[in-house]
């Protein structure tokens, strides 16, 4: 177990959601950064180098699938990706898994407690 805080990057364009997630995760002692579209997400992926990324699928400029496509293999190895969406479209879900996402969740499913549990499980993989 590392003494350093584990890092989580939230890539989500809906600020009410990302703020809530940030609050929840910071309380659990994670270091949290936010990005509001795909391009920003990729940038912060490089600079912040998180252990886990919460990635929204539908965003302006570059969507979640686009981010996954542009991630380097090293980044995919270092960062677990949980893909979030409220659209629940089969095609997108398949794409995400194919591109290496660890988990897909429906945003409306995850309560704060669920979110924390999910992060804990996924980050250690």
């Amino acid at each position, binding site marked *: 177990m590392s003494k350093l805080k584990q890092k989580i990057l939230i890539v989500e364009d*809906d600020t009410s959601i990302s703020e809530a997630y940030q609050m929840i995760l910071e309380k659990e002692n994670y270091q949290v950064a936010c990005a509001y579209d795909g391009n920003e997400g990729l940038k912060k992926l490089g600079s912040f180098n998180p252990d886990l990324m919460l990635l929204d699928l539908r965003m302006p400029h570059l969507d979640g699938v686009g981010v996954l496509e542009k991630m380097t293999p090293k980044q995919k190895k270092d960062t677990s990706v949980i893909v979030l969406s409220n659209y629940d479209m089969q095609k997108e879900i398949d794409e995400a898994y194919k591109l290496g996402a660890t988990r*897909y969740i429906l945003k409306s499913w995850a*309560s704060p407690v669920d979110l924390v549990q999910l992060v804990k499980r996924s980050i250690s993989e």
Partner: protein
Amino acid sequence: MTKQPNRYTKKIYELAGRSLYFPPFIVALVVLSVTLLPWQNARHNLLSSQQKAIDSKTKSVEAVIQNKFNDYENKLSSGVALMRANQDVTKQQWQDFFNTSATTENIADNEIIGYLKVFEKQNKSEIEQFAMSQGYKDFYIHPDTPGDQLSSSVIFVHPLSNNNMSTVGLNMLAQNDTKEAAMRAITTASPALSKLSESDSDSSYGDESLIMLVPNFANKTKNVTQEQRRQNLQGYVYTQFQPSQLLDELLQSQSRQQHFSLQVYSEEIKPSNLLYQTNNYNDIEGDERNSKTTRGVSLFGATWKMSYQFDDKYVVSTSERSAPTVVIAIGMTLSMLVFLATLSFFKRRTKELQEQKDAEVDLAKDELLSLASHQMRTPATGVKQYVGMVLQGFAGEVDPAQRLLLEKAYDGNERQLHVINQILQLAKLESGRIVLAKHPTDLKKLIEDVVEEQQAVASEVGHSLKAVVPKQPLMAKIDQHMIRMVLENIVSNALKYTLKAGTITVKLTQNKQYAIIAIADTGIGIAENKKEEIFKQFTRLHTNQTAGVSGTGIGLYLANQLVNLHGGTIELTSTEGKGTTFIIKLPKRQMKIKPSSSNISN
């Protein structure tokens, strides 16, 4: 390929919409009418070809006849030359001349050639004496022509057969047709062929004979005027023949070879004037317009009318004849092919457009579903986070009264989200939008995950929820997203329908073909007669005890459909009051899907 049709093609497709066969029909008609022009041409060419062929055949027939009569003329003229050259020609000389004459080479032996002496009545005895001197027995001039001044008598005839001998002494001028020809010969000072006279109409066809005369004038030079000619007339060299026999010899084989029938008439075409008819007369058939023709032949003052009937089949070659038919046949075949090609093109294109439209509709449906789902979920998600956070103590400690109210809000929101999920899944299912993405998945891990997630809910009510799984992973080719939903649904049901603190177990086992997941609870159980019903849409368990349990009744229906899609089954055993066990069987490997009632694609 998303080629959008332009305005004009849209109009055509509109037409095609009314009847798919209409445009191809029009196109075929156009092609057919285009071939009408070459067809007309071919017909026209055929007609002129036939005309030419008939012309040449009739000309060759006429040539044969003309040649024959020219031969006659030569022969007769040579006879006249003989009479002129010698003062006193004897019977023997006549015979010798015509036996050896070069001009006789082309002429058959039985052709009669004779000399008709013309004289004034008062000189009759002179002629009789001459005849005696020639050795004719029983010579007498007959018939007598009382009125006329002139008389005539055959004094020479070749060959000297018995038949011919009987003509010696015959006064041929007494016969009207001979007389007419004889007079004509003087008038024209050239050979004359007799015409069939009225009086001959009682003799039957085949018996008639004609006579050709060449006049012999005494003085060669002074024969300018009629009077002079009459004065100088000595006699006629003549030949007599039966036209039917002659023409038969000349033309019968030709008519057979050239496939025509012929009737020859003297002067006019009427039955009484028939000179000759080929014996294939009734056999030849032909089309009135093209193969029947009448020609006239002028022979030494007489006119023969030739009536031909050609056999269509032989006038021109079969290939020439069939040319127009071939053209129209090609035209029809072509237009039929064009029809079929155009039809298939339109069918294909219509199908393509339909498929395009269907795809567009599907896309629109997808968009609508996804939009609906998102719009309905977003506000509820926010509530879930923030109310959840308050309940977690993010905004400070929450007293019991506050907690109660907040939890009610939270629960209401949860119910809403749950309903939204179910309705959307159902919509997808019904519209066939669900596509399974099967990958080898570790069911052990999946079950452990689901159980762990539901622990919070379980402990709230006081249930004990555990997973009983083997040590090693158990792989099955499934759509993990869908199967997760199925497990969540059934476990959540188990939790709901167990009222007091109970035990819910999720057990994973396998046999050769299937992975078996048994979800057992100690809940209220399901009555025997309700066991099938609960899998139906919109059915919920309605008992006194379940009054407080929420649900839309879609969950089990959906779960069942999804498991069926994988080629698996859901069964249940239950005892009312004791508990229920749901048994999900999933094939470990790809299996053939049994057709189900819904239209889900895989």
